[in-house]
Structures are given as C-alpha cells and as structure tokens.
C-alpha cells in the first residue's frame, strides 16, 4: 500500500506524535499521562510509519528490531525494581529532584527511569506485534 497522501501526512504527523509521547512521559507523574500512554502513542507513530512506507523501509530506518526495544524496556523495568534494594530500600522506591528553569520548573523523579522502561516495553511490544501481524497477513495472502 503506497499512497502519496498518506506518506506526506505521515511525514507531517510523525515528529509531533513523538513529541507528544515525550510530553506525556514527562508530565505523567502528577498529571494525566505516563509511561503507558506515552508508549501507546509511540507505537501508533511506528504503525503509521510502516503502513505508509512499507515494512522494509521502516525496519531499515529504525535500525533495531521493535522486539528488542520491548525487551530493553523490560530490562529497565527490572533494574528499577531491584536498584532500591541495593540502597537498602523497598523495591520500586523513588526519590525526586526539582529543577528550576527560568520559565517553568521541572520535577524529575527516579520513577521516570521506570517509566522510560514502560514506554519502551509498551511501544516496542505493540509495534512488533503489529509488524508480525502485518507480515503474516501479507505472506499468507500472497499479495505483497
């Protein structure tokens, strides 16, 4: 499926969708948002990407299998589960720092690390699932 309109629209939408994912991730700690939705919007961006440009080009430009991204996310989650144990605290404990910038203040949590893991796991997992389904339907119908 190659459509000029879809490709151009995708080119327009993709950066914003990634930006939105990042915004959701950072806002997410005490406002609606967070790792899960952020991962979802990343996955939507990825799915849009390969529907518009085809799987081959998507894979080439991503340079890494979405499946691996998901696994990396899982590892990050595991690390943030165990890291507080090393510091002698309950698993998944967290701390926070507040950064005062000139225009706004930014709260950074150690939970952000965990959330990044969630983003990668959800985004990568959904994306690889969609890729796999797409491939199965293509190879078995015979029309590529």
């Amino acid at each position, binding site marked *: 499926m190659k459509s000029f309109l879809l490709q151009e629209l995708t080119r327009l939408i993709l950066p914003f969708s990634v930006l939105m994912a990042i915004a959701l991730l950072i806002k997410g700690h005490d406002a609606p948002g967070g790792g899960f939705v952020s991962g979802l919007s990343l996955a939507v961006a990825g799915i849009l990407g390969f529907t518009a440009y085809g799987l081959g080009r998507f894979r080439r430009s991503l340079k890494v299998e979405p499946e*691996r991204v998901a*696994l*990396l996310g*899982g*590892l990050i989650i*595991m690390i943030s*589960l*165990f890291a*507080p*144990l090393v510091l002698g*605290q*309950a*698993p*998944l*404990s*967290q701390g926070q720092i507040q950064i005062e910038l000139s225009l706004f203040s930014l709260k950074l949590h150690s939970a952000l690390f965990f959330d990044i893991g969630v983003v990668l796991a959800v985004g990568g997992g959904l994306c690889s699932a969609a890729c*796999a*389904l797409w491939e*199965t339907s293509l190879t*078995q119908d015979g029309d590529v």
Partner: protein
Amino acid sequence: MLLILFALPAFAGLLLWLARPNVKTSRRIALLISGILIISAAWLVQQTSQGAVQVMAFGGWRPPYGIAFAADALSSAFILLQALLLGITFLALRVEQHGEETLLRAHPLALFLTSGLIGGFLTGDLFNLFVMFEAVLISSYLLLQIPGTRRSLAGALPVIVVNFVASALFLAGLGLLYGMTGSVNLADLSEQLVNAPPNLRRVALALLVVAFGTKAAIVPLSFWMPASYPTLAAPLAALFAGIMTKLGVYALLRIHALISLDPGLSEALIWAGGASALVGVLAALSQYEMRRLLSFHSVSQVGYIVAALGLGEPLGLAAALFFALHHSLVKSSLYLVADELERRNATRDLRKMDFRRTGGGLLALCFGVAAFSLAGLPPLSGFFGKLSVFRAAFEAESFVLLGLLLVASLFTLASMLKIWRFAFARKPAPKKGEFHTQFQPGALGLLVTLILVLGFSAGPVYTYALEAAKENIDGSKYREAVFNAMGEGPIGKP
C-alpha cells in the same frame, strides 16, 4: 523472597530472549530457574503453613495505599503447584520432538507466563491482580502464536476476545468497589465492604465473579477454552490445562473467603459449577479428538471446584483447593499421554489409533493412574478430591448438587474408558514383537509419581487446605499482616 519468586522468572525470560543462546543452554537455564522456583516455593509453603503471612510492600508505601504482595497458605500452595508444573513442562519439551524453534520461543514465554501467574497468586491488591491477569493473557497469547500460522491466529482469536471482555468486566467491578470504598487493597476491602450499600456491593461482586468465572472457564462462560489447545506443542498444552484456569479459581477462592459473597452469588456459583460438571463431561464424551476431549473435561472438573467453592464454609473452600491441586496434576499428565499417543499414531483421532502402535507397558500404566485418579478411584488423589467435595455438599445439605456431581463422575469414568478402549485395548490382539516398547517416562513419570504422592498424603494436604480456608474466612491474620507491612513511618508517605 516474594520478590524473587515474582521477578526471577521474568528476568530470566528477558535475558533468554535477548541473548538467544543455543537450545541446549536455553534448556539448561530454563530447568535451573524452575528448580530454584520449586525450592523457594517449597520454602514458602513451609513458612506459611502455620498460618503466618509473608508481606512485602512496594516503594515504601504502606498498604492500603501502596501495593503489597502477601503470601499465605492459599497462595503458596498454588505457587508451588505452578513451579512444579513449569519444571515438568521444561523437562517434557524436547528438541527431538518439538523442534529447536519452538523450544527457543517457549522457554522465555513460559517464564513470563509463570511470572504473571505467581504475581497473581501473590498480590494482595485487586488492581494489581488485574495487571497480572493481563500479563498472563499476553504471554499465553504469544505462546499460542508460536507456530505463527494463520490457523494459530484464528485459534487464538476467541481466547483473546473472550478474555478481554472478561477483563473489561473485572475492571468495571473494580471501579465500583473503588468508588464505594476508595481502596483496591484486598485486606482493606474485606473490612470496608461490610458497611457498603448492599445493592452496589452485590453488583460489583457479581461483575468480579463473572470475570473470574470466565477465566476459570465454567459453564456458561467456558466456550473459549476448547478452542485454544489444538495448535500448542503438547507440553505447553499440559501447562495451560494444568494452571491457566486456576488463576480464576484462585481469585474466586480469595474473594469468596475474604470478602464473602452474597448468598445469591454463591448459590449461582454452586449451580454454575454443577452445570459445568455435567455439561463438560457430556461434551467430552462426544469427542473423538483426545485433546478436545480432555479440554472439555477441564470444564467439567473446574465445575466441581467452583461448586465446592460456592458451598463456602471451610469445608467447601478446602475441598476446592484440594481438588484444584489434584486436577492440575492429573490433567497435565493426561495431556502428556495424549502427546505421546498422537506422535505414535500420527493422528489425533482416537478412532484411528491402533493398539499395536500405541503399545502397552509404562505408557498404559501412566495413563491408567492418571485416568483412574481423574475418575476418582481410591486410593488415588481424585478419590479424596471428590470425597471432600461430596462431603462439603452433604454437610451443606445440597443433595441435588450431590446427585449431579455423582452422575458427572460416572460419566467421567465412562469417558476415560472410551480413551482406554480406543487407544490401548482394541482388538485384534497383537502378536509378540509388535509392541512399541521404547518409552522413557521422564516428565510424565514424575507427574504420575506426584499424583501418587498426593494420593497417599491426602490427609496432611487436606488438613493444610482446611487450615488455609479457615485462616482466609477469618481473615484477621491476613489483614493484620498486610496493614503492618512496614513497621515504621506514617501510614502512607505524604
């Protein structure tokens, strides 16, 4: 320790998937992990058997605000069961029979599945239980997709759709509970729901019961289950059959014991259970494909469990727990027998099986033990399982249910005899030398030994189950342990 039980399989699964070692290493690591799990689960059973409750709160937040894992006798029994079944599944998955690719994919996924199940058994928080249900669902869906064909996609579709709907109902019920009490912690809910508006409470609990009943596959919510097995590699089918429905059973047990369902709801559970027992076994009798026959049988057996559960009281809940343990072991071993039979005969159809290819000997012995245990002949575990269920029904003076279950167990015997007749005992009698005799019992042998052990130690196991049921109905120790999870600090951080 609770963290290890939950996180070790997930961690190992991730590493196995990322590192992609060769098959031999992968199998060794998987076996090692399941060994560690079995040992820690046995330790947990030993720790909690005296009514002690082990609690671990995440993030330094005290329950009811924080999420806590809480293990009592009930959870640890199920965890030990899962660890044992996982080890047996890994033993039974062999390169020569199932192919390298299947093994490489099955090892990490089965570990993820285990992590989700153990998390579900451990968690003391209803929303966390929902998350674990989803983790189990996703990994089981991926396991179903291992062949990666259109057939496996189609086969898994009903499973995933039905389970998603059940999850949505679960979430709706959870939302109602949270709206009423402001809490999703089980221990907290069990205290607060006493004063909740009865109608709302009934609706919320009914939603939960329907959701868990779907997961446990009781009639009339069971029709997704028989569709799920055909494409799985047999040892994985054994794992599924043994444990997948048990998370639903566990959740029902837990909420019925701790929160105590309304009389109407437990009545509904009793009759749904009775209906499952009968409908499942009748459906099984009409099947000629061994795996389908067995999976309809699961519906029937879960019916016994749920009926006992609905009867409530320590007797009913203990019977449900004992029967669940027995059924997992027996059903898994029957699936392993089915695998062996299918491979030898190169067909799944019982009518086309031939005694000369099936052979007698050890395989027949293993099948005999498992089948007669399922049918409930003494001194095997099934006899004691059924005895405890019948006793609960008798004490509750539910004689119609008793009759239903008795008829159902007659049919169970008939359906096992059907397999025996077609696969093991068909004429003409073979000549000497025509037997297929090479058979290494391996994993199946271990399972059958476990069934025998359960049969001969039925007394202590039943006492254990009874204690677990009493502790849960009382609930005071559970609540106390959960609320005192962290000795210091205010309740919840500011």
